[in-house]
């Protein structure tokens, strides 16, 4: 082969995203290039460092391609947070499509140091806890692990006590009662044994409680250095279509995990669209705070929100 791309990410190889999205992407690049591109896959941070460093690793060329959670590096890519706002996203495919379009239109400057291959969000963000949570009142004083800066703000706004810890620490913290619950989408619950450690899951009809944004990013120099035909192969396998595929696939992976929780005899609380209204009202300060922060950074947050809503509606309509 002519080119070897080192793909680095933080989950074990058999987890959903590596297995169902990244491997598919890598295989299809390898096939489309007739084997001239080889993608070496390094799961579980095998190349060293910790997940927040993935972004720097791809910028510096430690890895050629990384998959990472944008929220792991708070403050660096503020515009993407529009998709992390509470009750913003209703469908992962629509949001991933809108995210890509908005990346092309407004976020290229924030991501100027890398070549972005795909942008997507996961399925509905939700709460898994060892007590029943149906209304915002039930959140008072509950110790919950949040996924990103935005989620922590949301938890705090709702009166819960956000507890920060890395993902692998969740099972132990839950089993020891160090935390009462955690926010993650269904899809990751299996790997973290969450259904065995909690009894209740709170999901929301309609818009998602929260969401997390991902990017698949490539080193700029490596991309620019590819011969034109290989560049075309990479381009064909990235962008809008790939982003929608990734968001959709990750969201579809929620189903089996939800089944597993039911099998385990857990109780799933579904907050109806009407009942979610109380949650939206309680979460409103998160929007206000975010808008103020964006203004401070010279970004028109409201415009981003409006555009994201419009693009998601267009996709769904």
């Amino acid at each position: 082969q002519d080119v070897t791309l080192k793909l680095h990410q933080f989950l074990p190889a058999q987890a959903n995203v590596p297995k169902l999205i990244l491997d598919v992407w890598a295989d299809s690049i390898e096939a489309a290039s007739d084997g001239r591109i080889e993608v070496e896959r390094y799961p579980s941070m095998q190349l060293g460092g910790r997940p927040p460093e993935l972004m720097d690793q791809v910028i510096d060329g430690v890895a050629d391609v990384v998959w990472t959670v944008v929220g792991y590096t708070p403050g660096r890519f503020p515009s993407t947070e529009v998709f992390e706002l509470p009750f913003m996203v209703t469908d992962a495919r629509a949001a991933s499509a809108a995210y890509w379009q908005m990346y092309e239109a407004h976020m290229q400057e924030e991501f100027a140091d890398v070549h972005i291959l795909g942008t997507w969000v996961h399925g509905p963000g939700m709460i898994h806890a060892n007590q029943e949570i149906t209304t915002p009142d039930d959140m008072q004083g509950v110790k919950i692990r949040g996924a990103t800066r935005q989620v922590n703000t949301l938890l705090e706004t709702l009166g819960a006590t956000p507890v920060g810890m890395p993902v692998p620490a969740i099972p132990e913290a839950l089993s020891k009662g160090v935390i009462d619950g955690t926010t993650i989408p269904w899809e990751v619950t299996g790997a973290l044994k969450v259904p065995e450690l909690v009894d209740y899951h709170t999901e929301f009809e309609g818009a998602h409680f929260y969401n997390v944004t991902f990017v698949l990013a490539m080193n700029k120099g490596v991309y620019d250095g590819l011969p034109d035909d290989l560049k075309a192969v990479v381009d064909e396998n990235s962008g809008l279509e790939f982003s929608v595929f990734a968001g959709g696939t990750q969201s579809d992976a929620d189903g089996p995990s939800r089944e597993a929780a039911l099998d385990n005899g857990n109780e799933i609380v579904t907050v109806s669209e009407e009942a979610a209204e109380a949650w939206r009202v309680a979460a409103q300060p998160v929007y206000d705070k975010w808008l103020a922060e964006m203004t401070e950074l010279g970004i028109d947050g409201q415009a981003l929100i409006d555009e994201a809503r419009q693009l998601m509606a267009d996709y769904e309509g």
Partner: protein
Amino acid sequence: MSDLEIGLYSFPALLIMIFLRVPIGLAMFVTGLVGLYLVTGGNTVALSRLKNETYSTFSSYSLSIVPMFLLMGHFATLGGMSSALFRAAEGFLGHRRGGVAMASIGACAGFGAICGSSLATAATMGRVALPELKRYGYEGGFSQATLAAGGTLGILIPPSVVLVIYAILTEQNIAKLFLAAFVPGLLAALGYVLAISIYVRLNPDAAGTRPAIPMGERLKRLGAVWPVLLVFVSVVGGIYGGIFTPTEAAAVGALGTALIALANGGLTGKTLIESFMVTAKSTAMIFFIVLGAAIYNGFLALTQVPQEMSTWVVSQGYAPITVLLVILLFYLVFGCLMDSLSMILLTVPIFFPVISALDFGLVDLITMQHEAARAALASVTDLAPDVRAEIEALIAAGAEIPRELQRAIDIRVTEGVVNRIAAEQTAIWFGILVLIVVEVGLITPPVGMNLFVINAMDKATPMLQTYKSVLYFVGSDIVRVGILVAFPAITLFLL
């Protein structure tokens, strides 16, 4: 040269450097850096990694346990806990043949319960017990060997710094590893006591005796041990009682021992600074090795050596137990030359994938199903008689219980669940075995760190004499490793 070859050549390169007295952390760091340069064909990757790697290695939440436990050990000594332990154990055992030596082992075990390091345990108890052993006419080499061996209980009995490192390297649960180490740790103490009684029987002149002291005095001395108990219960009990994480437990332990030392006057401005200096040295030494290992292991991963190695071993079809014994033997031999932490950091990333790929038959699907079913049948009352009969028949026949029947009695023992348990148990069992063999390395001649530390305290005793006596303890260690390999349940039954 292929990447794989570069990876393989890095082993001899690294060993030559280490044997030429390059500090171990530095040797791994440099080998890893040069390796990265060769494999990636330039210095971009190697240099870029250094931008974040040092900070991210040193700012690890889990590793922050290490300096906290080290500090806790110093405060415990300042608080008089080491001498209280020795006096109590000596009160009960001192009048027996070899009793003062046995008491030293007991005190080491007790101190090991609040100290995470072998060297610190050996050094601390050495300072307390060596003069006493001398006073009662114990032979110098024998006394030193006893304390060096007793020191190894510091990492065997939880809390343990080396176990924390192993847990982080293999992504295992620290609390479960601590729990698994408990019984093997007690067995070690027992084995050393046996070694002492055999030694004094064969060498009657090696130990003096003293008259028994009255029971009242013994109980009084035992009463003085309460701070040790308090610290141990709040640290270890706190972890298992779900009150805090291991890192938090270390913080609680450090603060608790500090307060006790402050209360009895052991902790002053001067001794506090002294504790900082000593903790600083051990901490930085450990973390620099951790850093070197991170750089070296990142390079090895790029060369695919660990994956290729485990694929190769599995494809050879050796019996898992043979592979395990070869690895343990390797540790025993290298333990004579290198210190335990460096060995763990250097070798676990290579050996662990190999061990994980093998099936040791630690858990069995049918057995687990039947155990769960029996327990469920005993507690479930409202079960249809025919369902009950069907399950009982399956148990009697030694057959698998299908999903629907399991659901009827609210159990769910599937292949996936069992595999996950098997993987975890293998990791924990292997971790404890490795811990023990590297800990043996601390007392095997010629390079045994504990022996050096103790021997330095009493220059009158030649090293050779200590070497001879310590073989009895090494023998007891090897017997124990054999027992733990043969009966994994001794390690795993508490989990």
